[in-house]
Structure formats: structure tokens, C-alpha cells
């Protein structure tokens, strides 16, 4: 199965990015082939709706699961619509989280925050 994770840099020794929608990169990791691919998150500099666009990228990469410290409401709608499961990361280490996922130790992310949308009135 392929899994996606927001990451700060394009190396396995980097860390899990604290934000989902505006993360600079995504790691797409294949649990069977152990292959890792880093992709740019084109949503990072969006004027708005970054979570939606980032989620589209994740979904378009045919992943079965998303591992993230948090996820906004709109992004979660997109991910859920694609039947991709969202798991909460345990720390900022990419390798720890992959290991925990493979051992079935990660919990589903149940706190979906309302987003940090830059509404015009704010």
C-alpha cells in the first residue's frame, strides 16, 4: 500500500511537517516495495483552499492512507471522499511513523480542526 506524509524536506532523515495543506513536500512511501518518492506540494503557496488542493494531490497519487499530525475540515472531506484513511502521526520522525504504521500502531486522526482559512472578514 502507498502512504502519504507531509514532510519538511526531500530526505528520509527530515521531519514530519506540522501542517498538511501548506507542507512543502509529500513523501509517498510504498510499504511493499519500500520505495520512497518525494513530491512538491503545489498548494503550499495557494491564496486559499490549500488543504483542498493538497488533498487532491495526495488522492491523485493513489495512496491508501495519509499520515499527518493534523488535517483541516475541507482537506478531510476530500480525503474521506476518496476513502483514504487519515492516521495521526506519533512524533516528527518519518521513519518512526512508517514503522508504527506497518506495525498497526497508529490511531485514526479524529480531531479534524475547522481550518485556518483566511476568510476575507478576518
Amino acid at each position, binding site marked *: 500500500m502507498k502512504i502519504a506524509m507531509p514532510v519538511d524536506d526531500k530526505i528520509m532523515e527530515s521531519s514530519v511537517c506540522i501542517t498538511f495543506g501548506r507542507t512543502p513536500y509529500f513523501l509517498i512511501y510504498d510499504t511493499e516495495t519500500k520505495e520512497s518518492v518525494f513530491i512538491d506540494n503545489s*498548494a503550499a503557496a*495557494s*491564496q*486559499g*483552499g*490549500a488543504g*483542498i*488542493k493538497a*488533498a*487532491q494531490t495526495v*488522492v491523485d497519487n493513489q495512496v491508501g492512507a495519509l499520515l499527518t499530525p493534523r488535517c483541516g475540515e*475541507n482537506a478531510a*472531506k*476530500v480525503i474521506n*471522499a*476518496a476513502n483514504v484513511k487519515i492516521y495521526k502521526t506519533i512524533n516528527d520522525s518519518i521513519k518512526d511513523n512508517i514503522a508504527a504504521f506497518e506495525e498497526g500502531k497508529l490511531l485514526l486522526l479524529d480531531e479534524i480542526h475547522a481550518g485556518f*482559512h483566511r*476568510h*476575507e*472578514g*478576518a
Partner: protein
Amino acid sequence: MKIAVLSGKGGTGKTLVSVNLAAAAKEAVYIDCDVEEPNGYLFFKPEKIESEKVSIKLPYVDEKRCTGCHKCVDFCKFNALTYIGTKLYVFDEVCHSCGGCVLLCPEKALSERDKVIGEVQKGVSENVTVITGILNTGEASGIQIIKKLLDDKNEGKNLTFIDCPPGSACIVMESIKDADYCILVAEPSLFGVHNLAMVYDLIKLFKKPHGVVLNKCLNGENPSEKFCLEKGINILGKLPFDNELGTLNSNALISVRESEKYRDVFSSLLQTVTKEVQYETAINS
């Protein structure tokens, strides 16, 4: 002439100043652009109210026609559209109603639908035409309502006062865009001067002629006054931190219509403002 009244935060006295200036004029139009929480009408209690709904355009998908080409998804700058599996999703609250996706769709699978987001109410209170914008609770942006409010046909023959939303965000920019003059209302505190600096930066950016009304003035140091003197900003007038004015205002009464003292205060402020605007318009034309 259109005069916008603004401040960096709520509760500074925008409504007090704009309502009373409009009431002090022989004839004026008062437009409440604080669409999230309009309160000018509470003072004016306008009669003969006519309302008109305001709606925005949102894309609507005909799923039978959509082939999933992603053109609309890729086009949308605000990422209001997403295509998952075999279905196109629209995020209404993210959409800015530009209509681009509808124009672009090669399959003509997208069309526009109206969504009511609020209304504009127009009424009369003695010498003042009162126009109020109301944004429905839960809606993300009142820009379309402001656009409707500031439609040229609402403009007064002589004087139009625009009571702006608090702050310095998009919705305030939309409110002051076509104003001939800006009155900044400021409080005599450090917090007050911080908020004054925010709106001051904004109107400088828009190159608007402007002046400041210092509200809630007490004896002693006034950081906002100091700021004006340092920056060379014209102080149009000072309103005292006064029990009578506060009581009238908190009872939703218009001071100009209730108290001789304040009729004089606001009439003289109106005179100063009018002169300023005429002077600014003359040198800028």
C-alpha cells in the same frame, strides 16, 4: 461626496461619528457597511423599509456531462473545486464567484446558481436615507453586499457617510475604495494608537485624503493625538469621554437630535469635514 468612517477595531466610535454627522447634515445618506453586525439602524430607526436580497453565483455541476478533465480544478486559484473518484466537488465557502470554471468547462458541465447571502435594507429617518447591509450568519464574505450597498444609485446628492466594518481587511478596502475622504476614529490608549496605525497604513496605501477624530478624550496624555502630531495627520475634532454622550448613545439615541450641546459639536465637526473634503477634492482635481 462620499466620506468613509473607519477604525482599526470595533467600539471606537465609527457608528457614533457617522450617524451623528449624517444627522447633523441638512440631507444625507448613511450606509452601514458593517454587514456582519450592522447597528446604525438601531439609532436611526428608519421607516418605509424596502429590502432587496443579495446573492452570489456559485458553480453547479451536471454530473452526467462532467468527464473529469480537471480543467476547472487546475484553473481555480482558490482551490474551490476538487475531483475525487468520479465526482466533482465544489467548496461553496472557498469559491470567490469569479465564474472562470463555468467559462472554461469544455463539456459545459458547469453552470451558475444563485445563493442568497444576505440583504440590503433601505429606509428613511427624517433627513437621512438609511441603507443597511446584512450578511447572513455563517456566510464567509460580505464583499458582494458591500458592492451592492455602494452602488452609485445609493449615493446621496450631497453627502454620503459610509460606516465601515472594523479593521483593515478586504471588506474595509471594498468599503473605502470609492470614498472621497476618510475619517479615522481613534481612542486615547496605546491599544487605540496601534489600531489607528493599522488603518492609517491602509488609507495611505489607497492614497485617500484623511483626518482623525479623537474619541473618548480625557485630560492627560493621548497617545493617538501624539501619533497624529508626529505623522502630521489633520485632527478634525475631539469628542470627550462624557457621561451624557455615553448615556444617549447606549440608549440608541442620536445625540444630535437629543442634545443642543452635541448638535453644536457635530455640526461644527461636519463643517470642518466638509471644508476639508472640498479642499482635498479641489487640489486633487
